[in-house]
């Protein structure tokens, strides 16, 4: 990703298996934060959740998000991103979570009946780093 400084690029590589801590907002003006798997595609940070979850409801209605990517080996070293959900799609949703499952756990993601997986492509607007 071009907008991540060179000395922090390792944190967005698949093999680092870093997590994203994703902050979204509810319709009552309160925030939510939770860790999620991610990967990088072109200039997007890409995450995946199930339709109907709080994150899904929040991001579908209010696309402004904040997220951090801490170094799994050093909590004082992290990337902070403010960005916007630019693309939301169900197309290839299961294939994408399955791909993430292979990156993080080396195994298939369980298929849950009636669960619809959704892909969110987050475009970074401001990037800060620490450490």
């Amino acid at each position: 990703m071009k907008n991540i400084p060179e000395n922090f690029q390792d944190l967005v590589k698949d093999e680092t298996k870093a997590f994203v801590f994703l902050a979204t907002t509810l319709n009552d003006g309160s925030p939510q934060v939770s860790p999620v798997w991610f990967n990088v595609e072109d200039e997007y940070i890409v995450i995946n959740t199930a339709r109907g979850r709080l994150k899904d409801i929040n991001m579908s209605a209010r696309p402004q998000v904040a997220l951090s990517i801490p170094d799994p080996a050093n909590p004082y070293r992290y990337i902070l991103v403010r960005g916007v959900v630019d693309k939301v799609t169900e197309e290839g949703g299961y294939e994408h979570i399955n791909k993430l499952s292979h990156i993080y756990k080396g195994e298939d993601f369980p298929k849950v009946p009636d669960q619809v997986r959704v892909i969110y492509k987050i475009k970074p607007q401001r990037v800060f780093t620490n450490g």
Partner: protein
Amino acid sequence: MAKQSLVERIPESHRYLLADETKAFAWVAAVMPGGGPQLTAVWFNTDGEHILFGTSDQAAKYRYFKANDRVAVSIPDPGDPYKYIQLRGRVELTEEGAVEHTHALSRKYTGQDFNIAPGLVRVMYKVKPQRITLWPPGS
């Protein structure tokens, strides 16, 4: 029935995440005036009822929380990202005891007092959790 404290609401399996020895970090989300979220990493501890952290009165968080007291916090195990406490609630700001608390937090994480810049007012944030979620759940 007596209302349970924060620590009592967290089962044994996750309580160590709040203990000083774990030195876990908290990711804290505030909401900015424009409606977007802000996320920062903080040192924290607990008084048994609240998650406590601190900043100076110059921090952006201070302005955001003064305007909107809604907060979300995620506390991951430093050694196991699949284990965490997540909570949502409201935050109360106070200067009372904030300097002592700043030093206490610094000693927890670094073993030393904090170097407080002259002229800066310290603020303590007391997070009262309303909803608590654990991962893995039900453990």
